[in-house]
């Protein structure tokens, strides 16, 4: 009976409550003054309260609980985050124009080739890729002009432009 009512919704609420409770206990061993810990404790208390309310709701009125998407997007979330981080690293260490142009064209070429495979028509693929690479370079140049030349963004010196 209990197992049936234990939904993902409730489990996540429970996990958040536990994490917050852990932090809450941790605050008592911190070398900070009570005043500095006043609001953090309110925050953690609220998270615990919210988590408990979510679990309670699952037990009391499970029929109106939120339906969480089962689509498995997490790998994409991690992938996109990694790409962003990688790009953030690349444009500061390799070069703004180079990193942007290479990054964008790599992605677009991959999508274009994938599309071509899927539709099984390679007609005009080369032309399309050339156009996309040109577009990537244009975007890279626009970014360089806008951020570095116009807004004077601070850039560490890099190997390539």
């Amino acid at each position, binding site marked *: 009976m209990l197992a049936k009512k234990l939904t993902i919704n409730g489990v996540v609420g429970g996990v958040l409550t536990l994490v917050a409770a852990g932090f809450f206990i941790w605050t008592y061993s911190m070398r900070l003054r009570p005043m500095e810990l006043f609001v953090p404790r309110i925050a953690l208390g609220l998270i615990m309260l919210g988590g408990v309310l979510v679990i309670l709701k699952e037990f009391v009125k499970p029929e109106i609980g939120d339906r969480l998407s089962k689509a498995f997007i997490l790998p994409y979330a991690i992938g996109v985050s990694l790409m962003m981080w990688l790009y953030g690293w690349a444009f500061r260490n390799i070069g703004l124009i180079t990193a942007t142009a290479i990054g964008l064209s790599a992605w677009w070429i991959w999508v274009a080739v994938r599309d071509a495979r899927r539709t099984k028509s390679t007609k005009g693929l080369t032309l399309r890729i050339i156009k996309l690479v040109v*577009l990537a370079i*244009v975007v890279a*140049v*626009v970014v360089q*002009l806008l951020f570095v*030349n*116009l807004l004077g963004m*601070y850039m560490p010196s890099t190997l390539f432009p």
Partner: protein
Amino acid sequence: MSRNKLFILMLIMFLSLALIIGCGGDNGDEAVADPDEADVDLDDEEEDDDSDDDAAQEDVEIDIVVGFGAGGSNDLSARYLAQALSDYGITANVINMPGGMGTEAAYHVSNQSPDANMFMWGSGLIMLFEPAAGDRGFTIHDFEPVATIAGPTFALAAKAGVPYETLEELITYIEENPGEVVLGGQGEGNSMHFIVEKILPPDELDYTYVGLAGGADVALNLTGGHVDLGHLSLAAARPLHQDGDLTVLVNTQALVERDPLMPEIPNVIEFGIDARETHSPLALFAPQGTDEGLKQRISEAMEQIAQDEDFIQSYQDLGVIAHYLNTDETWDFFMDIEENLIPEFEAWLDSNY
């Protein structure tokens, strides 16, 4: 099929064009203010250390990193300096890297290679007091001084309508009315708070210290009468003083006694209290190993600039005193703080926090 693509391309072109046209005007103007294209091969300069006269003719580009956001007096003092340096063939770009009371910026500069031509717009607060309060990833010994040029003046001011107008009257008043006076300072547990407690030691005088968010916050709370005393910059206090919204009691300038901005305001040292704000004078620092010739050239230019009437006036409007200390004097000044004041500050921190 390609029409769509073409359209996107044209759109992007149009947008970039609009940008270039829209901002192109700015860029042109900027070139007048601070010529971006003055890129010169700096390696030449490093080699001929002794032929300073030749090197001085060449233009050089440097970055001055400011540890606070654009617009404050710390930032503006750097911008005035950068502007003045351009007359000496030194193109200085001011880069703002706010965060952690300027320590983020100092940490960044301390990690730069000596030939990056990057300098830190540092004060005792950033270079000495912050690293003393906790690990900030750098110490002053990661840097070499170039020169000191600016000394912001801070002051203690009382709200309108209180029965004391001098520091002595204030101290008497606190003694006679314990627990009544509220003093608003800029933050708590930092060097500003430390200085205030040196002027008014809390173990002798019973008053309340409250850490407000910053100079503007102090001014606002004083005008609104929420605090009785405030610790803020003289430049912020002066117009309010003239308008009768508050009374400036004493200044804490470390480089000179009286600030020409308000010469009638006495320095705290005149009362026999050495609580001058040695953490506030601003100096240019370079990462360890920076070319001596370049440092000397900038230092000499700063010496000239510090005597320029317009420059002195601009600084004065900011509440900053233009006061030059050369490389050695600067180092001595900072080392004096490190030897004498920092241990006291650390002890104060340990006993209070």
